[in-house]
């Protein structure tokens, strides 16, 4: 029986973690895995921290990724990577979008956004960081950033045997399919 694998996609409400996790879980199911995914809706959508938790293996019970258990954390925003650090498995990997979104207390001058997060995390764990929106913009649309990150995640998890192009075709509007396929492969090949 294969060990259950854990993935966390973390970010700020509105960054597109949901589509990325939809494609991911659909691909995993077709590859024959048991899959569970958990996300919390509600007030968190209004500028709050959001997380999508994906677990797969022969048999998955809990839908929640526990502390110290994520094989890969994909952070759509820097500070969210830091916030979820304690969920990374020892020896696990972080894929971090080199991008900052200022929370309200920082905007109001009540707190400061921590500086040098990516360098700080690199001292502790295996980090792949890049500007996903720039990669996506070069391909034609910054919104495909989520699929760039998905490509990098698939590479990090070694999920090469799944037909991801087919999953993108099945889950993305026709006019965005080519863009998202390119975004996926750009992220995969980083």
């Amino acid at each position, binding site marked *: 029986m294969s060990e259950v694998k854990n993935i966390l996609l973390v970010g*700020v409400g509105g960054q597109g973690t949901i589509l990325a996790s939809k494609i991911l*879980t*659909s691909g995993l*199911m077709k590859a024959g895995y*048991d*899959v*569970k*995914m*958990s*996300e*919390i*809706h*509600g*007030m*968190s*959508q*209004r*500028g*709050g*921290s959001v997380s999508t938790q994906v677990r797969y293996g022969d048999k*998955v*019970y*809990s*839908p*929640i990724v*526990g*502390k*110290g*258990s994520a094989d890969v954390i994909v952070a759509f925003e820097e*500070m969210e990577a*830091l*916030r979820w*650090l*304690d*969920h*990374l498995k*020892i020896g696990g990997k972080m894929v971090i979008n080199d991008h900052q979104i*200022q*929370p*309200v*207390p*920082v*905007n*109001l*001058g*009540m*707190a*400061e*956004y*921590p500086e040098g*997060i990516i360098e*700080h*995390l690199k001292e*502790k*764990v295996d980090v792949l960081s890049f500007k996903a929106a720039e990669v996506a913009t070069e391909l034609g649309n910054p919104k495909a950033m989520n699929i760039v990150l998905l490509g990098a995640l698939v590479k990090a998890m070694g999920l090469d045997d799944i037909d991801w192009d087919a999953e993108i075709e099945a889950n993305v509007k026709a006019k965005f399919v080519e863009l998202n396929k390119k975004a996926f492969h750009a992220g995969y090949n980083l």
Partner: protein
Amino acid sequence: MKVIMSGNEAIARGAYEGGARFASAYPGTPSTEILENMPQYGDAVYSEWAPNEKVATEAAIGASIAGVRSFCAMKHVGMNVAADPIYTFAYTGVTGGFVMVVADDPGQHSSQNEQDNRNQAKAARLLMLEPSDSQEAHDFMKKAFALSEKMDMPVLMHVTTRVCHSKGIVELGEREEADVPDYEPKIKKYVTAPANAKVLRATLEDRVKAAREYACNCEFNRVEMHDTKIGVITSGVSYQYARETFGDNASYLKLGLTFPMPTCLIKDFCSKVDKVYVVEEMDPYIEEHVKMLGIECTGKDVIPRFDELNTDIVRKAFLGVEPETYTSDMKTVVRPPALCAGCPHRGLFYCLSKREKKDGIMITGDIGCYTLGMAAPLNALHSCICMGASISQGHGASIALRDAGKKTKVVSVIGDSTFFHTGVNSLMDAVYNSGSNLSIILDNRITGMTGHQQNPGTGYTLMGKEAPEVDIPALCKAIGVKEENIITVNPNHLDEVNAALDTLLAKDEPTVLITRWPCVLKKFSKQDLDEFPTLHKTQCVIDQDKCKNCKMCVKTGCPALISTKEKVVIDYTSCNGCTVCKQVCPFKAIEEVTR
């Protein structure tokens, strides 16, 4: 066919397959997506948004009495609103199978309290099912209608946030049609005048007794025997955490039907294991029953009585094991939710916050996005208890303050959908009993917080049909608010809002201010675009030469304004031209430009 579904999607599918023909609900996280997923089965199942949970429940009860399989859905606190009908419907029993889906929110992800509604199943005597994942949510819901008919009891389908919003693989089935009998009155069953109700009260005990026997030999409750040193009794999603904690080193009594509790099954299971653990979220509902049977067990003495559980908590509680993790001394900053860029509530709360600081008004609040008016930098909302409470609380406070000789004015803030939910009754109270609070109805043309559901004021139904709209000013007038005391404004125009507040706060009688502008995230209807032609047509930019970096604009709390020590800029991707920042800028440094 296998598909990935959330618990809520699976419940909707299960209802369709189980032969439901009628569904009604009021939206509320984490239950909202159940009914949102019903229109796709619209050929077989009629579904609707009701103004509140009591109405939704009564409508579904009516369908059941008419002989049709029906269900209603709500969040946990909605069951309090619906308690009146359901406690008595438990007496009468059903004709068409009836299911009430109630979604609790352990951990209060999106709720004002954390009540454990399993206690209500016991108090009202409702057959209770507790699925532990999407597949069970589908299967239990499908079977619940026939079970309700077999036992002549309403079913309470009890789910939690983690079941509703987690996704898992679901094996779908076919719809099973149920015959609809010709209607015939059953007066002794359904007219709960005391003479009938006393008889029904007695037969309810017989039905509970029969259900308890059924619970001991049903497919919803199962025993998984492995190592017998530890026996775990559990239900709902807690089963998943227990299974992951103990693996095959324990045996399990996995309960899916938890009212009535399967007493024989519990006794038998406990006799086969050395010690008994009970793993459940929130109240010791199972544990108290086990202890009442005289069986020793460990549960809430090690597991928290509140908040959401997970495998880490269960593992630490029973095994004393904590995971190895990375740590950092670098501090993160919280991301409190905020009113969106362009939110039509911002202008109103900005004006209220100025007035609150100057005049010391009391602001009673309600349930919706506008509850966020309480947050910094606006800080302009003082209470939030339950749906519809702002106006009634404001009424009580206005009378109490007046009679105590205080000058404090009272303002009550309520959204359109919440006003229709239970605010209307409150306004009647304020008018009928000569209160003096100002009721502000924030009409953003949709039910916002739960993700944009239609309501009686929006002109559309859940199934996408056009519908009559409630005319809010006319309704307030019909309730008895004087016509000159009802003012409608565009909340993005601060001068309009301030003028209306000046007029209405000077009165010593019930007054109503309606702020009418659509939620910026709404998918606008044709009517919206006709009525609000400037929507999303412009945006604001800061002329950095004129800007003195005084931060007045930032004090509106708009997330499109990115403020650093050196300057403020407006994020053009999120600004949609509400112009509140432009109006508060003392240096006229903000311009409105075409988007």
